């Protein structure tokens, strides 16, 4: 991670290195330049001194000549001698200065310069010697007065001799000294030129580096400005997103603190002034019950575990849908449904202890789903209920209905009984709950799922009332309403049950009677009058009804199937005619499986086979679909029975089957490509093929084709299908006649 953070900013590193290098180069150049300047200065001092020194012997000579003349004219010598002394000292100093300057100018080690200086100096020394003697002789007592005037004393004569000697020495040495000094001067000049050039070069180099540095700094300033602008733009975008997004986005730390940045919707959705910095638990507490809160905290804890797979645990998210009550401005409460989802933020760096929370308002979705569910429950309820009732044993059903009736009456009585004390209300609540819970258990045992679901919904309401600390009479109003609905549903069951028992109660046709084609329509009139709803096939009924006496005995299975076909067709807006043949010949040991198979296959035929009337008309088919169920002893093979279920619907679709099998993972694409039609059609009998969608859409509506084929195989039979697209689907089931073993084991 460290390496990545270093690598993440290579340009920054380049920037630092380049700038430092430039600055270092500039410093070096400056130091060198200053050195050069010092040398230059020293060299020019040396040059100046040398040129001054070159003048010196001439000045001294002039002075000496002056002294000579003064001696001749017996004039006062003091001033001239002092001048000479000053010149001597000055020259000595000049030599010293030259020597120092040469060293400073870097010529200290130059042998030519040293030789020239030494030579000049030695020449000077010899003159200096003479001059010092002159100086020592002094200016006093040089003259003696004689009658002929003043003339030189002994000292004066010595001075004169010294001066003459000095002049001779000067004449002898000075040109050599001048020469040596000129030589030195030339050397220094050359050095001066060199230093000048190198100083120039250093200055040019320094300027270049300075320009480069300036350019670099300008470039990086520009870059910085660009990235600053990009950052500002990004920040603005983030702000825009956070201000606009409808979901509430927020970050939660391991300490459950909500992060500084969250979308504006969080405030609105959770009705919070300032979510930032708040503890998420505190925020959640007023919205959910204690158990959910505890679960939520545990769930968040899970997210921080390393091994946990987020996709897999999303299903345990206890906040995936919560019902939250908020007080609104008018003093009432408003219920909203909120969905939270959480995702671990796996960022690079130190901020890895964060979870991104997303909260959205799903009230519309929840309400819509409920409406749809209600709608579906209402539209399918008759058929579903009938199917459920058909599968329940008659006596058991009768018993259940009477006990349910009693339980509901009792519950109703309890709810409407007087008593408004807390204890009374609690007793009511518990009493009703006990009754309904028992009833739910019975309903579930009889697989009356629609009823069980309704009771379950009321139980949920009661359960939430139980959790309250104080109750009021008004709290029971929704329960009473729901209980009313339940009682209505129960009455519906009762009505249907009566119809079913009428059907079941009628006697079967005498065995051995010739197999008659039973026309489903013929009885539809009777059925619809019982139902009191509009008949679908009313136009053709009159004749049939007249033709067939109402008292005619019916096979109970045929009646049940007809009822089922009516109800299912009505629920799905289809028009269906059912023909049955030979069902009264079903031997007793096959009654149960054949009933189960027929119910399932008939339903399948109507739900999946027969097209809606309008579509049929468009296809040029009769608006009314036909399902034929026939039971025969196989004419070719006397050892088998044959049950055929055929509909004139749209047939099986090869493409649709392949598509679905692929989707379910029953086959892979290469297998799909190799499948011929016949093998493809066999896929529909595979476990999981036909049931999956149905169960999820119409829970508890029974079993699918795989169950039918399992059942058939259990009895040693076989099932096959033939179909013509757009024309028909025909299932043939053959069952062994000698099924006594299978039957007894299955019974």
């Amino acid at each position: 991670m460290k390496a990545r953070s270093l690598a993440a900013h290579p340009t920054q590193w380049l920037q630092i290195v380049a700038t430092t290098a430039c600055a270092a180069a500039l410093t070096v150049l400056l130091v060198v330049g200053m050195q050069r300047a010092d040398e230059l200065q020293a060299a020019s001092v040396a040059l100046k001194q040398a040129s001054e020194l070159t003048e010196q012997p001439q000045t001294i000579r002039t002075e000496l000549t002056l002294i000579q003349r003064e001696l001749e004219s017996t004039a006062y010598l003091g001033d001239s001698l002092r001048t000479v002394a000053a010149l001597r000292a000055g020259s000595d100093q000049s030599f010293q200065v030259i020597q120092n300057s040469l060293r400073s100018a870097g010529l200290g080690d130059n042998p030519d310069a040293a030789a020239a200086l030494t030579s000049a100096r030695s020449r000077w020394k010899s003159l200096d010697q003479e001059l010092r003697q002159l100086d020592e002789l002094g200016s006093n007592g040089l003259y003696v007065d004689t009658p002929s005037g003043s003339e030189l004393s002994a000292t004066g004569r010595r001075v004169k001799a010294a001066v003459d000697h000095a002049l001779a020495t000067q004449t002898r040495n000075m040109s050599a000294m001048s020469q040596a000094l000129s030589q030195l001067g030339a050397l220094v000049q050359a050095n001066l030129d060199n230093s000048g050039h190198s100083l120039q070069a250093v200055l040019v180099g320094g300027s270049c580096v300075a320009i480069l540095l300036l350019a670099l700094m300008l470039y990086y300033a520009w870059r910085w400005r660009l990235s600053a602008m990009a950052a500002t733009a990004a920040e603005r975008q983030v702000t825009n997103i956070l201000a606009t997004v409808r979901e509430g986005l927020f970050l939660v730390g391991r300490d459950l603190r909500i992060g500084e940045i969250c979308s504006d919707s969080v405030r609105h959705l959770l009705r919070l002034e300032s979510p930032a910095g708040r503890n998420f638990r505190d925020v959640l507490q007023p919205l959910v019950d204690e158990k959910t809160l505890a679960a939520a905290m545990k769930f968040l804890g899970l997210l921080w575990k390393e091994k946990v797979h987020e996709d897999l645990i999303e299903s345990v998210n206890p906040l995936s849908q919560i019902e939250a009550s908020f007080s609104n401005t008018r003093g009432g409460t408003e219920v909203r449904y909120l969905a939270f989802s959480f995702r671990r933020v796996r960022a690079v760096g130190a901020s890895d202890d964060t979870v991104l929370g997303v909260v959205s308002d799903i009230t519309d979705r929840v309400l819509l789903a409920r409406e749809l569910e209600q709608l579906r429950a209402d539209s399918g309820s008759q058929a579903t209920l009938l199917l459920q009732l058909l599968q329940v044993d008659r006596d058991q059903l009768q018993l259940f209905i009477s006990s349910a009736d009693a339980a509901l009456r009792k519950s109703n009585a309890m709810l409407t009984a007087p008593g408004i004390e807390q204890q009374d209300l609690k007793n009511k609540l518990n009493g009703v709950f006990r009754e309904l819970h028992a009833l739910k258990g019975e309903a579930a045992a009889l697989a009356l799922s629609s009823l069980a679901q309704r009771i379950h919904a009321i139980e949920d309401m009661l359960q939430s009332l139980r959790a309250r600390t104080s109750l009021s009479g008004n709290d029971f109003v929704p329960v009473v309403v729901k209980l009313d609905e339940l009682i209505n549903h129960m009455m519906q069951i009762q009505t249907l049950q009566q119809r079913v028992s009428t059907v079941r109660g009628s006697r079967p046709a005498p065995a051995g009677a010739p197999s008659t084609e039973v026309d489903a329509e013929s009885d539809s009139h009777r059925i619809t009058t019982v139902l009191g709803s509009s008949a679908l096939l009313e136009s053709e009924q009159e004749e049939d009804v007249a033709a067939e006496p109402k008292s005619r005995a019916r096979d109970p299975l045929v009646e049940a199937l007809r009822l089922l076909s009516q109800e299912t067709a009505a629920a799905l807006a289809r028009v269906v005619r059912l023909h049955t043949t030979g069902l009264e010949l079903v031997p007793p040991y096959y009654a149960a499986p054949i009933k189960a198979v027929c119910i399932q296959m008939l339903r399948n035929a109507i739900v999946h086979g027969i097209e809606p009337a309008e579509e049929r008309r468009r296809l040029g088919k009769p608006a009314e679909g036909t399902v034929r169920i026939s039971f025969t002893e196989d004419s070719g093979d006397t050892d088998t029975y044959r049950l055929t279920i055929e509909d004139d619907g749209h047939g099986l679709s090869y493409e649709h089957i392949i598509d679905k099998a692929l989707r379910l993972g029953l086959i892979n694409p290469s297998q799909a490509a190799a499948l011929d039609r016949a093998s493809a059609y066999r896929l529909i009998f595979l476990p999981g093929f036909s049931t999956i969608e149905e169960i999820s859409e119409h829970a508890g509506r029974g079993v699918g084709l795989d169950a039918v084929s399992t059942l058939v195989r259990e009895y040693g039979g076989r099932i096959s299908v033939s179909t013509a697209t757009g024309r028909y689907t025909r299932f043939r089931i053959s069952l062994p006649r000698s099924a006594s073993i299978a039957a007894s084991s299955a019974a």
Partner: protein
Amino acid sequence: MALTRKKEAPHEAPTHRLMVVDDSNVIRRRIERVHDLLGIEFVGAARNGREALELYEKLQPTLVTMDLTMPEMDGNECVARLVERDPNIRILVISALADKLTAIDAIEKGASGFLCKPFTDRQLNEALRKLIES
């Protein structure tokens, strides 16, 4: 009595060996039925946690579906014990919707996924698929 059954591999050798732990016959059958779709080899079923632990040694499953409320030993404890034996085992816990807290507990103890009861075949299929792909 534990139920065990061996099935021959359909096309390629399945890499996932499934053990079902559930006290309900119906649910056990349903899960067994779906396993074919995903190329999972069903190796056996247990009715409670104790039986599951016994069978584990013999069957060495890599996938387990586990009802959380069972007699003998509850699902959560069984999850913990199984994970202790094989940290890589993938366990799908099955429980009622109202019981998310228990499910969270199970995941804390090392289960990999959760399926809410009642479930459709498709949901079961999807949950198993996710479990395999995770």
